[in-house]
């Protein structure tokens, strides 16, 4: 067992951006432990994104064009990964820690008798040891693996994206019929949005319960749209019905690390901080200066959001007209 198998993530339109960061970790594994880095695309459209994936620093791209994988059922996905791991002599299996990766990769690990590291943020000095955040990212755990194969889901915010400027690696196709476990796909209700994806956006504007209601939350959306950013939210705002739950940032929502993160009317509960505190620049507005959000904010403003946010919005509009 020697190679590194990277399982890429796509949606109907594209190779997701998080791959570039998760691939950085896979590349580091190959550089340290040897073996080829083999990037895999699964699903009917697999071949469509192959040439794009081949330009990262990978040694090979393998496509498994099987329509039964499009529903992203854990049974079929894990069966395919086990087939690939055996055919390509994989020692390490890596995928982003999206909901898809977190759903299928532990199932692969159990089938391969492999140790599984969720949300891995890097290697440790010791051979076969790795790092991951725990306790809502208050602590880092360093773990030793005791298995021949190791599976990972990678926290993409911990890695700089790998450049996509390499000479294209060879592409080959693999034939395999994945077996399911009886689960049937019914339907997928997509959250429709013209905004960038929360996990890829350069700017994220998030609102909390301080926005009072759906109407108030619109201010957050307006500001995000002016900056071309994504909209995020706290569990408080989601549960109060201000926005869809897909917007939730935090321990049990999305983990983001944009260039700029705005936290409006957000208290800064540990579960929320876990999802955004790796952002490069954090700006918080809250009327209560004692809230924990100010402990992570680079710029904090103690003020009523309904007074200050409209002023900010006007300032951006004015700047755009200049």
């Amino acid at each position, binding site marked *: 067992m020697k190679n590194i198998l990277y399982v890429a993530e796509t949606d109907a339109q594209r190779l997701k951006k998080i791959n570039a960061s998760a691939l950085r970790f896979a590349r580091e594994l190959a550089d340290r432990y040897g073996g080829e880095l083999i990037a895999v695309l699964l699903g009917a459209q697999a071949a469509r994104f192959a040439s794009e994936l081949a330009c990262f620093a990978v040694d090979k791209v393998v496509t498994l064009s099987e329509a039964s994988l499009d529903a*992203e059922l*854990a049974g079929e996905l894990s069966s395919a990964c086990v087939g690939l791991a055996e055919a390509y002599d994989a020692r390490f299996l890596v995928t982003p820690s999206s*909901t*898809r990766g*977190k*759903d299928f990769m*532990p*199932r*692969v*690990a*159990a*089938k391969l008798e492999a*140790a*599984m*590291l*969720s949300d891995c943020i890097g290697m440790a000095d010791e051979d076969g040891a790795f790092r991951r*955040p*725990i*306790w809502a*990212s*208050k*602590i*880092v*755990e*360093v*773990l*030793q*693996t005791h298995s021949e194969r190791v599976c990972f889901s990678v926290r993409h915010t911990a890695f700089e994206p790998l450049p996509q400027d390499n000479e294209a690696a060879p592409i080959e196709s693999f034939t395999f019929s994945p077996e399911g*476990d*009886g*689960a*049937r*796909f*019914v339907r*997928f*209700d*997509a959250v429709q949005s013209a905004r960038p994806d929360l*996990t890829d956006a350069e*700017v994220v504007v998030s609102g909390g319960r301080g926005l009072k209601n759906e109407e108030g939350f619109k201010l957050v959306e307006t500001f995000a749209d002016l*900056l071309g950013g994504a909209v995020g939210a706290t569990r408080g705002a989601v549960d109060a019905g201000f926005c869809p*739950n*897909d917007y939730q940032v935090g*321990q*049990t929502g999305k983990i983001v690390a944009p260039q700029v993160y705005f936290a409006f009317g957000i208290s800064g509960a*540990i579960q929320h901080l876990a999802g955004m*505190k790796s952002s490069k*620049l954090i700006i918080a507005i809250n009327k209560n*200066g004692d809230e924990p959000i*100010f402990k*992570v904010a*680079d*710029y*904090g*403003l*103690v*003020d009523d959001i309904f*007074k*200050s946010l409209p*002023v*900010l919005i006007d300032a951006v509009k004015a700047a755009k007209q200049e």
Partner: protein
Amino acid sequence: MKILVTVRQVPDLDARVLLSDDGSEIETDGAEPKINYFDEVAVERAVRFKEAGEADELVAVCIGASEATKELRAALAMGVDRAILVEADEAELDPSAVSQILEAVVRREQPQMVLMGKLGVDFENTQVPQMLAARMGWPQATFAFSVEMQGEDRVVVGREVDGGSSYLDLPLPAIISADLRLNEPRLRNVLAVVKAKNKPLEQLEADDLDVEPKALLSTLRYELPDEREAGIVVASVEELIEKLRTEARLF
């Protein structure tokens, strides 16, 4: 239908944490441990199945220290019928070992559905339900925000996934892990807590189940991540706009 629900005891995340000098242990400021919130949500779903006449027996299981009987009693107080504690030192287990013990419990109890939490809020592994499903060869639905029976032997699960909601139709037996919005767990009233004291709680060891759990991971140490440098509090929205324009060059 018989439902097995899994329950874990977890520390209070809001407590201040310290690491021992050699980084081998996490110390909390004497805060009360509690039931893992996602497991509480799973228990609530199971109890509602029973109230609706769709389940007839609910069994809760925990693998952990004897102190965790407190969390099993909490599940009994919510409406679970009986509980099993498989005594073990969690520090010596990993998700793989836990899933091996749970497999033995599932083979003994033969439930039609296993309801679990999507993750433990302390270690956030998000692995045990999926590993258990793989071991049993059963279908899985993780991150459930809705779980509804479809006739006698199928269940439709709505899942919170990136970009929207995904719906799966699973044949039973199946493994389901609960997300935050599946329900609001009920409060446990005094009477229910008293009654729960008389419900059966069996204490076992892995040996009694004929399993020798093998952990594939062990903790070398804990570390504290780098703290963010303290920022500044600006005096006015005008000053903030100035900073955003000149320093962050945002607009």
